[in-house]
């Protein structure tokens, strides 16, 4: 605002021109200090949160992936074993042990790997984090 101050607010405020200039200077000063402080605060909070999230996520990921792999192998082996020992002898009267067991063990390993790859991909693309990005625009958004 120019010191001449010929706008309508000349009638509104009872503050003198000097006081007005002083307030403006101080508010600018506060704004400058806030701007200087904000990135560091944000970085601090973010790096803190990131570090914690990373360790939590990594553990959850490890627990999940290991059971995915084991689940596939166990199911494959169990299917092959029961085919060998029950289904094939009773249905067709042939003794296939350990052929089916071997085949289904390999298929099960492939299925386990497939599970791991699938859930790994899902984690990578994963559901978006709603906390990232501001939902409500603030003053900065208008300026920039």
């Amino acid at each position, binding site marked *: 605002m120019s010191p001449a101050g010929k706008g309508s607010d000349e009638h509104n405020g009872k503050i003198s021109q000097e006081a007005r200039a002083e307030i403006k200077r101080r508010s600018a000063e506060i704004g400058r200090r806030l701007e200087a402080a904000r990135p560091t605060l944000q970085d601090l909070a973010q790096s803190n949160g990131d570090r914690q999230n990373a360790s*939590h996520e990594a*553990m*959850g990921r490890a*627990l*999940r992936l290991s*059971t*995915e792999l*084991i*689940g*596939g192998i*166990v*199911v*494959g082996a169990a*299917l092959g074993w029961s085919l060998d020992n029950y289904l094939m002898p009773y249905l067709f009267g042939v003794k296939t042990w350990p052929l089916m067991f071997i085949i*289904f063990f390999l*298929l*099960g390993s*492939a*299925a*386990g790997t*497939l*599970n791991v790859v*699938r859930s790994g991909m*899902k984690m990578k693309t994963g*559901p*978006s984090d*709603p906390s990232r990005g501001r939902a409500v625009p603030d003053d900065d958004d208008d300026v920039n």
Partner: protein
Amino acid sequence: MMMTLIKGSTVAAEGHGHSPIEQFEIRELVPINLFGIDASLTNSGAYMLVALGLIFSFLYFSTGGRSLVPTRLQSISEILYEFIASTVRENVGAKGMQFFPLVFTLFIFVLVLNLLGMIPIPGVTFTVTSHIAVTATLALLVISIVIVYGLYTHGIGFFGIFVPSGVPPALLPLLIPIEIISFISRPISLSVRLFANMLAGHIALKIFAGFIGLLLGGGIWALLAPLPLALTVALTALEVLVAVLQAYVFAVLTCIYLSDAVHGAH
């Protein structure tokens, strides 16, 4: 000195209340016999009833006010609702919201049971989700709903999820069995994950907590007692995290499996 320790540990193992797996014992509280079926109320069943009572009363009383500006309790309920609702929407889509009651029930039930198991009450504390009979039942419920709903909406075309798209037909005889095994392994990994996490965590807690007593009773070894104590404190915090995380993982995986039933083959 080492002998004292070893002797102490065997005595502790024989004495009651110190075995690390004793906490998983199922005990009969009220014998009930229904037409030859043993339907007794056990400590496991009692814990489930307590969990149900807690969940019901919490949700009932916290949402009873229905104020526009939520009270603290009401906002906890609202956060829980929105958390699960967004999980369902993200993983299944808007069409999946019909399964919201199922996912919410599973999540809150597993969560409360996991957390109840973390409250130490001597001679009482029991973690229901550390038994595979419980987690496998929940997983079978989920996978049955997936199969029944998938067949209901897509008919026989539901089995198209076993046929991966965009692969040469020559590979299909190999890939279809793999996909089928992968599908069958889902309820197994779902139930084993929850049960194994809770079981292993509680055993580890008990073992490290047991070391404190053993070291304290071992003369000069008592100087080392703060080490397992610190580890037990850290493990307790980790177990609370695991309790929440595993309930969430159970809910997320339920959503992922349900999305197959809702959307069918891609």
